[in-house]
């Protein structure tokens, strides 16, 4: 473990990844201080104007919005749209900060649960073998027969809008990779003497899987999970981009990019004038995903001696 940590910190790529991740964690934790929410639900992006057209960075809150907030008795915590506003007057800066929490939430919850399902199915399939293995693996094949994004889109469309629906869809179609990896590892590990010894002693099957096999085979799965967090966040953002993800106005990077879609070309004589609508959320998504990928990639190189160049 020490060797792994040392490698993680001595490799420039993974060091950048770790620093980026730490920054994002900080942003997520400090969100209420960096961008104090106006309303009870902090995940609703406050609007800085009623204008459909995006407003450039630094524009002040419009007068009529200010009156609305004052009428509602809300305290106005800040008055400028630091990074400009998206289509519909939504404050980009606020969305970025609270979107970090959304991203962590989506990434961690979906990866955790899809890993759990994958571990369960993969280990049962490998340990018991025979027709159980056959059935479970064919079911896995069936779930794998859908392009991930298409499957997630269909399920979200049918379940309806909302972040919870998006996460359900991502979990339902996201566990197959884990199941296959853990199945492969357990298939080779279950012939080892310690497993046979445990069986001979009459240890229960569940306990053998949980106490003996999983601790020895779970590492590749964890690496896969760390790489997977990025792609889950991308897929969730893609769903929002397609217009079936988070509800309108929810602090979510994908939706902010989709707001930018109509404005990206700019107006006549002002090519690229609305760059900020896509630039800021785009940078946040890319850095977030990159951070996870850098760490995951290094972990894989460290743990896979074939790629390390030491054999």
């Amino acid at each position, binding site marked *: 473990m020490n060797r792994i940590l040392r490698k993680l910190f001595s490799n420039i790529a993974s060091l950048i990844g770790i620093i980026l991740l730490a920054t994002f964690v900080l942003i997520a934790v400090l969100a209420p201080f960096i961008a104090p929410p106006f309303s009870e639900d902090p995940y609703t992006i406050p609007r800085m104007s009623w204008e459909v057209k995006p407003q450039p960075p630094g524009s002040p809150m419009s007068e009529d919005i200010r009156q609305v907030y004052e009428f509602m008795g809300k305290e106005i915590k800040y008055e400028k749209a630091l990074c400009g506003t998206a289509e519909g007057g939504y404050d980009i800066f606020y969305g970025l900060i609270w979107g970090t929490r959304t991203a962590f939430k989506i990434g961690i919850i979906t990866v955790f649960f899809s890993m759990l399902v994958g571990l369960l199915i993969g280990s049962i399939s490998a340990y018991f073998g025979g027709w159980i293995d056959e059935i479970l693996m064919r*079911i896995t094949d069936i779930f794998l027969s859908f392009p991930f994004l298409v499957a997630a*889109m269909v399920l979200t469309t049918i379940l309806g809008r909302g972040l919870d629906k998006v996460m359900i869809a991502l979990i339902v179609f996201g566990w197959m990779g884990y199941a296959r990896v853990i199945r492969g590892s357990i298939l080779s590990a279950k012939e080892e003497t310690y497993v046979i010894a445990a069986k001979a002693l009459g240890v229960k099957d569940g306990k053998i899987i949980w106490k003996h096999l999983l601790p020895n085979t779970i590492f590749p799965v964890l690496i896969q999970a760390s790489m997977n967090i990025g792609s889950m966040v991308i897929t969730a953002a*893609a769903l929002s981009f397609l217009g079936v993800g988070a509800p309108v106005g929810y602090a979510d990077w994908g939706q902010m990019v*989709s707001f930018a879609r109509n404005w990206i070309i700019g107006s006549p004589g002002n090519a690229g004038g609305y760059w900020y609508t896509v630039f800021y959320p785009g940078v946040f998504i890319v850095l977030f995903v990159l951070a996870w990928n850098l760490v995951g990639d290094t972990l894989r190189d460290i743990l896979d001696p*074939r790629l390390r160049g030491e054999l």
Partner: protein
Amino acid sequence: MLSYIIRRLLLLPVILFGVTFLIFCVFSLLSPMERLATYVRDPGTLKNPQSTARLISKYHLDDPFPMGYFNWVKRLISFDLGWSQSANQPIGEAIRQRFPATLELVLYSIIPVILVGIWLGVISAVHHNDMLDQTIRVTAIIGWSLPTFIFGLLVLFIFYGILGWLPPGRLSSWAQEIIHTAESFRSYTGLITVDALLNGNLAIFWDALRHLIAPIITLSYISWAYLLRITRSSMLETLRKDYVRTARAKGLEENIVIHLHAKRNALIPVTTVAGMMIISMLGGVMITETIFNYPGLGFWAATSAQQLDYGSVISFALLFASIMVIGNLIVDISYALIDPRVRLE
């Protein structure tokens, strides 16, 4: 060999059953009323309780689950897919009309990746740990981290917004007019670039290509990153094998060792990946076509999803899943043809 292929073919109906069953399960999350809306052309009829009750029983929408599934598959087989509200035409017709556009996009995306991506991957492995290798690796990771919808918007921003070179859509309006009205222009394949060449109309060919370049780049850049990485690691592994060392010890030229001995074996796992790559492209089609307003299946599916046109979305998923199942079958069989170890198992 033959028994392997037969076993694989026998599995096909099982998978197809599973796929349709899974989709039907998802579809059944909707109420009969919502499902009825996918078969009705005029939404006004849904307001009349008597006619809806009649229609629900006509389409067997309130049957018990197994019967419902059976009747639904029966309608699928007779291509009665329902009415697409978003396209305002029967779903089968909507698919038929949009299929060539998507096919054209996907074909042009796959072929260069497979040819050039593999070549770059081999080079990067041969020069392991050199600057070139590092550059390719970093590019691959960045490519992997850049979501399609951001990359695509960037391409649109630069090449259309600022430079004005690569317009969105599939054709300029003048070209569209010629294709749809001119007597002299005959449509053979539905792939506009091919049709234009067959008609000898270079202006239309060039116009279609100009519209295609940006979507192609957007759809395929992730596959570049992916294929490169896999080829590289597979090649690295092979280069350390004993038989490669033997070949070198025999005094064979490095070029021959790499291209004849190592590359052939290293590319075996790449076949599978190339299959997976096409799969990942099928998902990317929706995003790419949405960004560039490219009138294919993906654009239609995304629009249908936004308008809650469930029937179209479900049919789209079914179509793409079937393409994938058949694609996987082809990959597996060609894998067996290439790799004797699979064959003999």
